[in-house]
């Protein structure tokens, strides 16, 4: 065993879906595989991506779309990144300010817990604002190549809102989201746990939707490694995947919830109150300042329902969103390259099992609340169902 290769530096952003990585290290699952891991907490996705790209990190807690964009060379340097393990599925939520919540509720023609009702209501609120020549509504998301960007767009576009022309979408670092909502710099945002809960606890935001209500199975964060590193270190990679699989099972075991929440809340880890972490892991969130709770058993999936096994269909869906919103051209070779980022084969190699279809999961493995079922082999006709933006060749 090469001892140098088994000494790893792994970067992460303080978010609840780094749980499997943090537990793998702090509960000794990585050490049990002979890996010595140094976790490095980072402040921006740009840093995580760059440090992974240039080799300062061996692996990273990474937004799924960044792994794909980096592999395709979209928006930045082309460095092939692969994902042998999915750290989290779902976990995001859309939060709006109390005035916007009231306006949406007033314009709704049904229960606004239904994302189609809320999206149509948002379109009416926007039309009314336009008629009064008011400034467009502003929504925060975390990165141009982020699930948050695509989730927000997917939801509002289904109600007839053009995310590029009808509203302003701005990138905000997650720790600044709440403050920006408080000082009315934004009217709403889509972000991961725990920031939605923080806004509700402060009485300045209403959680409108869990993303799990919009997409049943939305790949969120991946364990990303450079493809070259993976090729050179197959044994270390397999051990890393095994450590993560054990950690994910530990996180999902209700009996460990308190301990997991305590570890995650450490100052050098995620650093928020254990109570908030526990509610996040349970999928039981306070959604309104008046204390209304909402429970969703798919709010955040760490290892349940077979989500840890990378699914190329999920990668194709993320790539389809890049095409839909003009970030990438649609090309057959790019579809193949995007799918090849998510590597179930490496997951299976490490764990010696081939996962059968998980019962009760959406047939198209996405489960969107609107639109036709997703077909990763026919992205063009899938996108034909929606208005799309042409790709800017420049």
């Amino acid at each position, binding site marked *: 065993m090469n001892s140098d290769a088994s000494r790893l530096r792994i970067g992460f952003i303080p978010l609840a879906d780094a749980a499997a990585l943090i537990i793998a290290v702090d509960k000794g699952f990585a050490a049990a595989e002979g890996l010595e891991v140094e976790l490095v907490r980072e*402040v*921006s*996705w*740009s*840093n995580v991506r*760059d*440090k992974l*790209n*240039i080799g*300062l990190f061996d692996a990273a807690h990474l937004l799924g779309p960044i792994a794909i964009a980096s592999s395709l060379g979209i*928006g*930045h*340097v082309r460095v092939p990144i692969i994902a042998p393990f999915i750290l989290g599925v779902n976990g995001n939520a859309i939060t709006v300010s109390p005035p916007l919540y009231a306006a949406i509720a007033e314009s709704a023609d049904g229960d606004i817990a239904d994302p189609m009702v809320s999206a149509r209501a948002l379109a009416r609120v926007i039309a009314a604002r336009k008629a009064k020549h008011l400034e467009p509504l502003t929504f925060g998301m*975390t*990165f*141009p190549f982020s699930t948050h960007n695509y989730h927000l767009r997917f939801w509002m576009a289904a109600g007839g809102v053009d995310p590029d022309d009808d509203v302003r979408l*701005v*990138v*905000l*670092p997650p*720790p*600044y989201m709440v403050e*920006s909502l408080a000082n009315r*710099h934004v009217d709403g945002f889509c972000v991961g746990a725990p920031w939605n809960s923080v806004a509700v606890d402060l009485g300045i935001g209403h959680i409108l939707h869990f993303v799990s209500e919009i997409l049943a199975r939305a790949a969120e964060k991946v364990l990303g490694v450079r493809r070259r590193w993976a090729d050179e270190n197959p044994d270390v990679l397999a051990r890393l995947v095994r450590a993560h699989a054990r950690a994910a099972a530990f996180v999902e075991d209700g009996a460990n919830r308190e301990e997991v929440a305590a570890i995650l809340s450490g100052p050098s880890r995620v650093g928020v109150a254990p109570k908030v972490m526990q509610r996040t892991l349970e999928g039981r969130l306070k959604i309104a300042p008046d204390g209304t709770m909402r429970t969703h058993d798919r709010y955040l999936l760490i290892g349940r329902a077979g989500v840890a096994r990378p699914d190329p269909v999920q990668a194709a869906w993320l790539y389809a969103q890049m095409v839909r919103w003009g*970030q990438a051209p649609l090309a057959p070779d790019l579809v193949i390259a995007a799918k090849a980022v998510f590597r179930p084969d490496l997951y299976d190699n490490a764990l010696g099992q081939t996962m059968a279809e998980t019962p009760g999961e959406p047939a198209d493995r996405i489960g969107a609340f609107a639109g036709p079922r997703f077909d990763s082999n026919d992205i063009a006709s899938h996108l034909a169902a929606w208005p799309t933006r042409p790709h*800017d060749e*420049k």
Partner: protein
Amino acid sequence: MVVAPDVEGVRRAQHLTKTHPEGDCGAILLPMDTSLKIAIVDESPIRAAILEDGLREAGFEQVVRIEETKSLLERIYALDPDVILIDLENPSRDVLAQMFQVSRIVKRPIAMFVDQSDTASIQASVDAGVSAYIVDGLKKERVKNILDLCISRFNAFSRLQEELDRTKTALEERKVIDRAKGILMKARGLSEEEAYALLRKTAMNEKKKIAEIAQSVITAAELLK
């Protein structure tokens, strides 16, 4: 947290950079280069001041510091810089990523990283903790000196910070040792020299630092109170 610029700190850092001239812009820049407009996004006012100073010394006249990161994009659009320098500890780096998306903006900046030919320079800049964005089309050679200067100043700043941290730790340790000496003098009727000798002997026997033994003495004394 906003810290008022520490003039003394700036002066000392300048001194430091001058004693480490390896990358400090030895090359004379071409006259046309100094016309570049440079924006510095740094939450550390001292470091930003050090950087601005270095750039001005090198002849750059249009240097603007942005310490307030709210409405960062608007400020940058209004400024329309040719080069943006940002510290890597700044979460607003992701905000800059949005600039590459918006083709409507007249000048589209790109990350220095886009040019992969100069890996050593990229490594050096990430190690130092600074990243540069330049307007698309600007020749990389024209900004190399700027980046080199930044790396040198950022490194000088880290050295200064480390020196400061070391001084602080030494001061803290001295306080702890003094308290422990006091406790020993009182409890065992020792002179100051004897108390210190006892701490030192124990530290040597236990292969620990004197400050650690001193801290144990204080903790024990508090438990026995």
